[in-house]
């Protein structure tokens, strides 16, 4: 399996605190991967580095067939290269309609002049309608995103990610604040998403990760502690010591 994303030897420290310490990690094409670890293990910092928000002090983040180094690229270019990010709290543009939100995310030219003179094409409208149906918001298209319920906003954000057509999707704690039924739903959705693209889920809810039934990477103090199936990593004594033992 050739790697879609290969993170090698990245380190970053904030004010002397080493958030990420010589971390190496590879994500394959269409792989579903869970990253777990206690608070402060560097999960979110890892995502920040991949999406260009934080620049690592050292190391490389190689992307795609041509091994493009993402380090030093800004967020927008990385997003256009094909990496989408789902935030923990739903972040949609609340002052705009569901339809406008989806149109914003559609994979179309993103330069100011291209956008200024762009007209809505029928195929764009069809794509938006298809996505809205898939996320169950077809009836809500003309409504303001701010009027949606918390759950609907989550769905809208996922719809925007679908519209973006990323090759790799980074998902931050999708199960936080969800009811058991909603978790069930989300698990199914993530597995379905992973059929066509790589999905990395950062989570610290063990039960949720178990249901995802995928390869698991355990982070601790900014480096990889163990990697493998959930059963494999949970039997690792070091993992039990730092994470599960508590």
């Amino acid at each position, binding site marked *: 399996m050739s790697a879609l994303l290969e993170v090698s030897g990245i380190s970053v420290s904030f004010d002397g605190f080493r958030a990420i310490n010589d971390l190496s990690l590879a994500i394959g094409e269409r792989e579903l991967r869970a990253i777990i670890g206690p608070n402060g293990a560097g999960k*979110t910092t890892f995502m*920040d580095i991949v*999406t260009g*928000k934080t620049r690592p002090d050292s190391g490389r983040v190689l992307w795609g067939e041509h091994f493009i180094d993402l380090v030093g690229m*800004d*967020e*927008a*270019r990385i*997003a*256009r290269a094909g990496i*989408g*990010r789902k*935030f923990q*709290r739903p*972040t949609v*543009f*609340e*002052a*705009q*309609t569901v339809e*406008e939100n989806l*149109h*914003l*995310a559609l994979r179309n030219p*993103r*330069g*100011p*002049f291209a*956008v*200024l003179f*762009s*007209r*809505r094409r029928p195929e764009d409208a069809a794509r938006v309608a298809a996505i809205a149906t898939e996320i169950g918001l077809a009836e809500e298209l003309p409504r*303001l995103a*701010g009027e949606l319920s918390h759950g609907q906003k989550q769905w809208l954000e996922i719809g*925007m990610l679908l519209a*973006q057509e990323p090759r790799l999707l980074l998902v931050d704690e999708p199960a936080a604040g969800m009811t058991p039924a909603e978790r069930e739903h989300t698990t199914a959705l993530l597995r379905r998403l992973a059929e066509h693209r790589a999905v990395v889920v950062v989570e610290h809810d063990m039960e949720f990760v178990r249901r995802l039934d995928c390869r698991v990477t355990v982070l601790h103090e900014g480096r990889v502690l163990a990697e493998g199936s959930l059963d494999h990593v949970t039997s690792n004594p070091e993992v039990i010591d730092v994470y599960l033992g508590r």
Partner: protein
Amino acid sequence: MTWFLLALALVTLGATVLSQMGLGLISTSFVKTLGKTLCLCLVAVAMDVVWGYCGILSLGHMAFFGIGGYAIGQWLMYARTEIIVTESLRQSPLPPTEAEIVAAVGSQIFGVVGSSEFPWIWAFADNLLLQLLMVMLAPGLLALIFGWLAFRSRVTGVYLSILTQAMTLALSLWLFQNDSGLRGNNGLSGLQNIPGLDHLGQDLLSVLFLWASALALGGGYLLFAFVTSGRMGSVIRAIRDDEARLRFLGYQTEHYKLFVFTLTAMVSGLAGALYYPQAGIINPAELAPMASIYLAVWVAIGGRGRLYGAAIGAALVSLLSSWFTGGGAPPLDLGFHVIHWTDWWLVVLGLSFVAVTLFFPKGIGGLFDLIPARRPVPDRQGAFGPDRGARRREEGVPE
């Protein structure tokens, strides 16, 4: 939009009919005030696009307005002085050479600052076409360079406002110097006399400028309505509401901000170029930071995030302002103290600004949402209210 353009046409036509036709119901100076007000409306509409739609609280757009005024003022002064000088030299026994005329024009214009040389900044002053280009290019270029530096470094919120203010102050202080090449604190004067059109008389000229201002405002309004609609408008409003999120969608937000900042600066320059020939004089005080703050006040009172709101705010506040400070308003006798509006107007303005931002964040324009048959347009629901610039979180992942 249709309503706005209709109202604009009505005001322009009405003023034309009332001032001409031998009726003389409206004085020339009032026509000029009206024309100037339309120019202020145009710069306010531009300010609304950059602040109300894109969320950049620029405190420098009146500087772009002033640059436009200076650019056209250079030609007006040069061409007019040249005519006068040629006229007076005609009496001399020997016909004057080209160089003698230029030297005489130079000493006429720069005598007040003890010089007679033309500074580099007057290189195109004899060419109306080039100077008209400068009206848009000079503010555009300044905005482009300034914006590129600021947006690329991701300066946002109050920090950006302070930077734009510093730019305005620096420009104004530079212009105050005698060796700036623009006549220091004397500024440029006599701009109401249009070379070659003197025979028309001020009453007709004032109407012509009123028409030009109305056309510019109408055109600018249409341009900005186009920019703030469709996907472009959607992106611009998204920058205001959550710039970091938009970046993760793959939009290079700084390019958009640069586009909006530069375009509005160019339109502001045009507005200034139409304003100052009607005002007759421009001096560095016009570019003082205070002017740009007034502009923000007009837009806030008129209503951010709607183009007609900004125009209404600018028209209302600037007309009221000249009424109160011009001694038009009768003093109010409270018994223990007589309120002279020339002294108290600024207090009233300040209080109403505070009241509007705190209690009526949608401004005067918000009244239009109260018309029952009208469903509020989505873009009027944005993150207004007290400007959150100061409290805006650091860029990045929303928490």
